[in-house]
C-alpha cells in the first residue's frame, strides 16, 4: 500500500490509458496548456503532443458530441468536462445521442466514450460550481455511471471504463482531489459491476458513494465509540446499480441510512431506498433513512455550505433516530 492523492491517482490512470492504447486521446477545456483545471493532466501536452491532448473551445455540447462521433469512428476518447454544472450544456448529446444510438440503431453502432467530470460541493464555490447531479445521470439507460471514492478506484476505474463498449461517465468529487489515500497496488484492475463494503458492521448499513463515503466512514468511527457497529457500503457504480451487495448488508443489519450529496427530492438515495424496500422490506427493523443535501442552491459562506450538505453529525443523528437512541 502506498499513499497517494486522489489527483495523482486520476493522473496515473489517465497516463496509463494514453500510454497503453494509441486510440485513446483526451479532450476538454484546459486539459492541455493549463494542465487540467484540477491539474490531472499537467505535463501531458508535452508528453503526448497536441494531437492526443486537445484543448477545446468552451463548447461543451460540441466537444462531448465530437467525443461521440470520434468513438463511432474508432477512437477511444476521454472527454473531460470541467464540472458537472457545465455538463448541462452537453445534456442533449449525452441523453439524445450517446445513450440512445446503440438501441435506436438496432445494435449497429456502439459508442465507447468515456466522459470524466468533477462534481460536488465543499470548496465554497457557490451555486453554479457545487452541484451533485450524478443521480440525474444514473436515471438514463444506455450509459454507465461511476463514482470513484477511493484512490484505488480513481486510479483503476478509468482503464476499466475504456474497456466498455458503451458510454461511461465518471464523476470525481472535487473535494477529494487533494486528499491522500492508500492505493491498493495489488489491485491491477477493478471490476465495474460490484459495490464495495468499505467497513463491516452489524447494527446498521450506511450506504453512500463519492465524496460522502468519507463522511460515512467518519460517522462510523464515532458510532463505534458509542458501541454501534455500522457497515459502510460504497456503491461505486450508480448505473447499473449493484443492489445485491446493498441488500445483503441490510439483511444482516436490518437498518439502513442512505447518504447522498444530491438534493433529497428525486435523489439517487430515493432510488436506493425504494430498492431496499422492494428487496428486503420484511428484514427491516425501521424505515430506510436518508441524509441528503438541503434543497437550496449551494451557498457560498462556509457555515451555510456546511449546513446544506450531508455531514457526519447528520448521519449520526439519523442513526440515533433509527435506533431509538
Amino acid at each position, binding site marked *: 500500500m502506498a499513499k497517494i492523492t486522489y489527483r495523482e491517482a486520476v493522473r496515473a490512470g489517465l497516463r496509463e490509458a494514453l500510454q497503453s492504447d494509441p486510440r485513446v486521446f483526451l479532450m476538454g477545456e484546459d486539459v492541455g496548456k493549463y494542465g487540467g483545471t484540477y491539474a490531472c493532466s499537467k505535463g501531458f501536452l508535452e508528453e503526448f503532443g497536441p494531437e492526443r491532448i486537445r484543448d477545446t473551445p468552451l463548447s461543451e455540447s460540441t466537444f462531448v458530441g465530437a467525443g461521440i462521433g470520434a468513438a*463511432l469512428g474508432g477512437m477511444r476518447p476521454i472527454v473531460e468536462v470541467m464540472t458537472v454544472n457545465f455538463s448541462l450544456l452537453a445534456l442533449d448529446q449525452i441523453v439524445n445521442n450517446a445513450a440512445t444510438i446503440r438501441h435506436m440503431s438496432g445494435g449497429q453502432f456502439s459508442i465507447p466514450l468515456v466522459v470524466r467530470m468533477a462534481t460536488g460541493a465543499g470548496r465554497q464555490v457557490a451555486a453554479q460550481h457545487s452541484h451533485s447531479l450524478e443521480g440525474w445521470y444514473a436515471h438514463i*439507460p444506455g450509459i454507465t455511471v461511476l463514482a470513484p471514492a477511493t484512490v484505488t478506484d480513481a486510479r483503476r476505474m478509468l482503464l476499466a471504463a475504456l474497456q466498455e463498449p458503451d458510454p461511461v461517465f465518471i464523476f470525481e468529487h472535487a473535494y477529494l482531489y487533494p486528499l491522500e489515500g492508500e492505493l491498493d497496488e495489488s489491485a491491477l484492475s477493478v471490476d465495474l459491476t460490484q459495490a464495495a463494503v468499505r467497513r463491516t458492521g452489524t447494527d446498521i448499513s450506511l450506504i453512500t458513494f463519492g465524496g460522502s463515503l468519507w463522511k460515512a466512514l467518519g460517522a462510523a468511527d464515532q458510532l463505534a465509540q458509542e458501541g454501534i457497529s455500522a457497515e459502510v457500503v460504497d456503491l461505486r457504480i450508480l448505473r447499473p446499480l449493484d443492489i445485491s451487495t446493498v441488500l445483503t448488508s441490510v439483511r444482516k443489519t436490518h437498518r439502513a441510512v442512505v447518504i447522498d450529496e444530491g438534493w433529497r427530492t428525486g435523489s439517487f438515495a430515493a432510488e436506493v431506498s425504494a430498492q431496499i424496500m422492494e428487496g428486503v422490506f420484511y428484514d427491516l427493523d425501521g424505515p430506510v433513512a436518508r441524509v441528503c443535501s438541503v434543497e437550496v442552491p449551494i451557498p457560498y459562506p462556509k457555515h451555510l455550505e456546511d449546513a446544506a450538505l450531508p455531514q457526519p453529525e447528520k448521519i449520526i443523528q439519523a442513526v440515533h433516530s433509527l435506533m431509538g437512541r
Partner: protein
Amino acid sequence: MTHVVDRDHGLELLRQMLRIRRFEEKCAELYSGGKIRGFLHLYIGEEAVAVGAMPCFEPDDAIVGTYREHGHALVRGTPMGPLMAELYGKANGCARGRGGSMHFFDAARHFYGGLAIVGGGLPVAVGLALADHMQQRRRVTACFFGDGAVAEGEFHESLNLAALWRLPVLFLCENNLYAMGTALGRHQSQPDIARKADAYAIPAEAVNGMDVLAVEAATRKAVDFVRAGQGPYLLEYRTYRFRAHSMYDAELYRTKGEVAQWKQRDPIPLFQQELRAQGYLTDADLDNMETAITAEIAEAVSYAEMGPWEPLEDLTKDVYTGVRRQA
C-alpha cells in the same frame, strides 16, 4: 439549368429523384392507412439535394442525416425494403424497427442516422471527422441539416471546432426556408446562411437546390476541397419542401400561392425537360423507369408487410452491448 454531360448519369439522377418521390408518396398513403405511425417528415420537393450530393461521396465516407432522411438513405444505397420495414416498425427494418421514419441507420453504408434533435448531428459529424483525421484516413463526413439548425448553438460551436482543427467535414445545409413553421427571416438576423461560415473562416457557397446538376457540381467541388485536407466546407442548398412539415401540420404559416410558385421549380419535371431537350429521355424511357420504381416500391411494401415484429423479450436488447465486460 445546367447541361447534362453524360446520358446514363443523367438518367440515373432522374431515376433516383423519382424513386424518392414515389417512395414518399407511398409513405403518405400508408400513413393515412395507419401502416406508418409517429412523425413522418417527407422530403418531397427537396429530392435534387440528396440525389445531387450523394454520388459525390465514396462508399467509405460517413453520412450524418436528420429526421428528414428517407431520400438520403435511398440514394446512399440502403435497399428500399429495410427502409419501408423501418417505417412499419418491423424487425427487418434498417434499425430493427426501433427508430421509425426519423432514425434510419445503416452501418454497412456508414449512415449514422437519422438524428432528430435539430443541430444534434453536427457535433457527431465533427467527431467522426476527428476520428478520420487522427487515424489519417482520407474519408470525409457529410453532415446534412436544415436551416432551423443554424439557430442552434451546436451549429456555431461545430463550425468553429471543425475549422479550428481543420477537420474533413462538409456542412450541408438544406435550406427549405422554414424551421418547421418559422420562416428563415423570422428566426435569423442574417438570413444568408452561407455568409455565416465567414465568421469561422470556412469557405461556403449557396447553390440552387432545385437543380440536381448544380447541386452535384457544387458538392463535388466542396468534397474535393475537404478530401484534400483543407478543412471543412459549408454548402447551402436553397430548396423547398412541397409537403407539410410532418403529417400533423396545417400549414398556417405559408400561402398556397407560395407553394404553387415553388412547385413551378419542381426539380423532377425541370430535369426531365432538360434531358428531353438534349435527346436523352423519351416517353418510353420514363415509362420504363416509373414501372420499375412502382415494382420496387411494391416489393418494399411486401417486404415490410411480411416482416416480423421484434419479440417483446428483445425490448431491452442493445441498450448496452452484449455481455458487460470486466476489466
